[in-house]
């Protein structure tokens, strides 16, 4: 009797368990389809000629796949290629500069928020976090005036300075989560052995927080790479434009060249997606520590 109940229980448990499991799998299939479809269509369209793209019903797979759109964008001899490569270079420069500055500024701040108990610490920390709450548009007009006054309109300096601020709050938050998890005894031991506070920080804490720094860098880089509104407002000169604005210009000048546009969006996505996929475990880990522990 009791064995019967037990096996029944097990059977019930197994079937209900499987129901949820299959539901979960179906849901994942749907979600992956939803996620992949636009990216797949971007890639497929980018391999078509302009003529092949403008057909109804569409060619689900191009009958004559071609890499011409990519060659055109990457050919430094043509006008399109020159523009695209310049935008690409501008984006790389702005994103790298923003990332380096963000790490330099965020590391000491996050360390101080984690370790020291100075008056106003909590207030300052939340003030920094509240930056997430401000819409970019609020800052457009005053920052535009500020940049005009500083003579930075139409320079990459205006973008780097602006991007720095919206990368900072999350960078500080992520890093603080990391420092909170590094035992303070390690630094105390170093201090007893004669290290200064800075040495303890630099030689003990910094290396241990490398994953956090990597995560912060990815976040800043992606944010800067993808930013559109400020670049759209602060830059009017073509040779200064970054990719998101440059691509918009491409679109407005060649409104029906969908394959070319898709190739350009694909090339724009490659660096950030690759960077993120290679380093995502750091990012997910950092977010886990930051998001949950606070």
């Amino acid at each position, binding site marked *: 009797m009791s064995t019967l109940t037990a096996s029944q229980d097990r059977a019930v448990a197994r079937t209900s368990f499987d129901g949820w499991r299959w539901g979960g799998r179906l849901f994942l299939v749907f979600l992956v389809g939803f996620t992949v479809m636009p990216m797949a269509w971007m890639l497929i369209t980018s391999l078509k000629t302009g003529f092949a793209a403008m057909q109804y019903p569409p060619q689900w797979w191009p009958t004559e796949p071609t890499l011409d759109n990519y060659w055109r964008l990457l050919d430094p001899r043509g006008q399109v290629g020159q523009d695209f490569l310049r935008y690409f270079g501008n984006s790389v420069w702005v994103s790298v500069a923003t990332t380096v500055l963000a790490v330099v*500024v965020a590391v000491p701040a996050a360390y101080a928020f984690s370790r020291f108990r100075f008056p106003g610490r909590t207030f300052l920390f939340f003030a920094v976090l509240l930056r997430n709450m*401000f819409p970019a548009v609020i800052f457009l007009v005053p920052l535009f005036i500020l940049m005009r006054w500083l003579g930075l309109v139409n320079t990459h300096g205006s973008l780097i*300075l602006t991007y720095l601020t919206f990368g900072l709050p999350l960078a500080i938050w992520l890093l603080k989560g990391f420092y909170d998890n590094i035992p303070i005894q390690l630094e105390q031991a170093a201090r007893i052995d004669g290290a200064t506070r800075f040495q303890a920080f630099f030689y003990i804490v910094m290396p241990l927080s490398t994953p956090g720094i990597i995560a912060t860098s990815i976040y800043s880089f992606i944010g800067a790479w993808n930013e559109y509104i400020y670049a759209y407002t602060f830059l009017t000169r073509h040779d200064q434009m970054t990719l998101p604005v440059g691509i918009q210009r491409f679109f407005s000048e060649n409104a029906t060249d969908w394959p070319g546009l898709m190739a350009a969006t694909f090339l724009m996505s490659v660096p950030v997606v690759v960077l993120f996929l290679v380093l995502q475990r750091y990012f997910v880990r950092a977010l886990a520590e930051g998001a949950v522990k606070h």
Partner: protein
Amino acid sequence: MRGRQLDEVYRKPNVAERAWQSRADYLYVMPAIVVMLVVIAYPVYYTIELSFFKTPPSLQLKDKIFIGFDNYTTILGQASFWKVTVNTLIWTFFSTLFAFVLGLGAALALHREFVGRAFLRAILLIPWVVSAVAASYVWKWMYHSDFGAIGALMVQLGVTDQPINFIDNTTTALPSLIVINVWKEFSFAMIMLMAGLQTVPEQLLRAAKVDGANAWQRFWHVTFPHLAGVSTVTILLLLVTNFNSFIIPWLTTGGGPAGATDIWITQIYQLAFGRQRWGVAAAYSVLLFLIMMTLGYFYVRALSRGDDKREVA
């Protein structure tokens, strides 16, 4: 006598003294604070100031005229104001709801170990990394009224006879844009909640199972309460992001057709850089700022609850 002296010696230092004692600590946060002050505090102050003035289209600040609350009454008197507000609320609410639900589902489905889990997680994170500009153009192309993939697919599957004109139609435009937005940001909810799921104690789930709780009961009574904190933060951040979205509506429809996808931010941008009505745009921004600060209050409260807990522990 002696006691009094001791009291004086061991008196708790006041704020200024403690601040002076920890002056070296401020050096660490100084760069961050200075950048924030220049690029945040100054613009906020400036926006508030501009909202009380009429500034000429050329943005010559010396010619601005004080007009009190006129910019605010102008906004509230606009026929489009309430329509834009309703659009913004629909956009924000449904984007947040669907992004959160899909993110939660994905986090739960990916929580269990299985072959290919890391790969699937990576795939699902891609939309969040891709720029909103790229996302807008790809979806605009998929929604294309003549050659769009979605329209053609629906005809081939027999859902409709004719391809639907998704984004040039006042009834379907806003929902179509919400789909793009959900595509873009459900992964954010997913990573936050995946992180949250790691805090759910495994023993508790097993104990609940032994006690005969079914999968739904285990989720509702054990998992979900542990996710409450992360969920609050995630939802607040999603609300803020969505309220402040600009790129997707701006690049796909530009607020059209007939204002069907015009939301606060696109409206503010239009007023400022399209029509050079700086004062009205600034007043709009101040209203937006007040809403964001209200959400910000809850955000800080949700975060500081966790922070207190950690410090006690």
